[in-house]
């Protein structure tokens, strides 16, 4: 019993040192359709998506948004809204090799300059515009035309001293716009 008390005391004492960490990541949680604005629901209905629509609330440090996730021609698609239900963009996943040759080469040139090696994990076309424009793009089966769009690319980037996952944003012409290192959630409870 003495040992048991010692063990419990050790646990309690060590708990005092528990890091009172602040949330560093976006907080995403499922939303029931009853809690989604009518405006956002009506917009998504007009897109003729195939699969079940799942709604999420994403909270950043200073921002909140609502996201609808579904499928279109077996590809993952997500529609992002502000909290009032106004559409912000539509992202649809495509294979890296389906990006137009000249645009892909321009992006690849930039990535080759940054990394010694890289591996593209996910590519999404990000369509921008007002409701009318985005519905018109959906009727055109999300084909890339002269409409305003960007490419969001998730890739594993290797440099001389690190291997990390990054999110890059390129313009529709393949020009570099933004780069962010993806911070993974803590995996200590899976390792030990």
């Amino acid at each position, binding site marked *: 019993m003495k040992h048991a008390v010692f063990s419990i005391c050790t*646990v309690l004492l060590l*708990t005092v*040192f528990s890091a009172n960490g602040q949330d560093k990541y976006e*907080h995403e*949680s499922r939303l029931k359709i009853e809690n989604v604005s009518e405006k956002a629901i009506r917009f998504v209905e007009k897109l003729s998506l195939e699969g079940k629509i799942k709604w999420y609330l994403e909270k950043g440090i200073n921002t909140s948004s609502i996201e609808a996730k579904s499928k279109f021609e077996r590809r993952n698609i997500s529609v992002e809204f502000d909290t009032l239900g106004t559409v912000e963009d539509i992202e649809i996943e495509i294979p890296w090799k389906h990006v137009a040759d000249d645009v892909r080469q321009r992006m690849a040139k930039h990535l080759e300059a940054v990394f010694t090696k890289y591996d593209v994990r996910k590519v999404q076309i990000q369509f921008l515009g007002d409701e009318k424009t985005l519905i018109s793009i959906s009727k055109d089966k999300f084909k890339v035309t002269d409409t305003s769009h960007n490419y969001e690319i998730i890739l594993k980037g290797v440099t001389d001293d690190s291997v990390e996952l990054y999110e890059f944003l390129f313009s529709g012409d393949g020009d570099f716009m933004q780069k962010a290192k993806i911070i993974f959630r*803590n995996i200590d*409870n899976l*390792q*030990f």
Partner: protein
Amino acid sequence: MKCFLSILSVISCLSVALGQSNFEAGLLPSININKRISEGWSQNFKVESRQVLIEGLFSEKSEFDYHYVLTDFTAITSKKVGLNNAISAGYTLRLVDGEIVHRLIQQFTLTKRYTSMRLAHRFSTDQTFEPNTSMEFRVRYRLTTEFPLNGQSVDPKEFYVKINHEYLNQFQAKDYDLEVRLVPLLGYSFNDDNKLEGGLDYRLSSFLNDSSSSRFWLSINWFIKID
């Protein structure tokens, strides 16, 4: 605790089928502290205690008999060797029956992230040195899956389910045994650096011989990360 006792009741009902197999049931609390040392390097400290509440044969009635068994103090250093991989080496000091047992640990972990779940493979070996006993060598493989009960990732203030399934090959002198573990846990993330998990830790061993040995632990794990 009610759930744990219910599980014990189910075990009692299985006693006829399990014949002369023996069992142990008790508590297995642990605290797991992780500290980042430098880019790619981290240090893990773990304290785990084992306490038996009841033990005996499935075929016989057993009485409640609390006794403390052991405490393990473990330190493991890890090096990230890829986007999702880490190699680790460590040491466990075990205090049991007034004796000190030493264990050396080597492991490799590979973590995969999917849209709504995470999967981790852990390959490890360890060598245990106990006074007046041959060195025990173990080769282990553990598969861990974790999925959130809300949304697509485990966010702060959310519950999740974690399931460990492990195979341990144990070699000691000329003896060999295989132990299989199944550990379903319910977890809660206070924030990304502070998680609490609780559930059943079931261990089945000696089933290659005539009489198997089952151990049921109420596992309570606290994971803390310090930057």
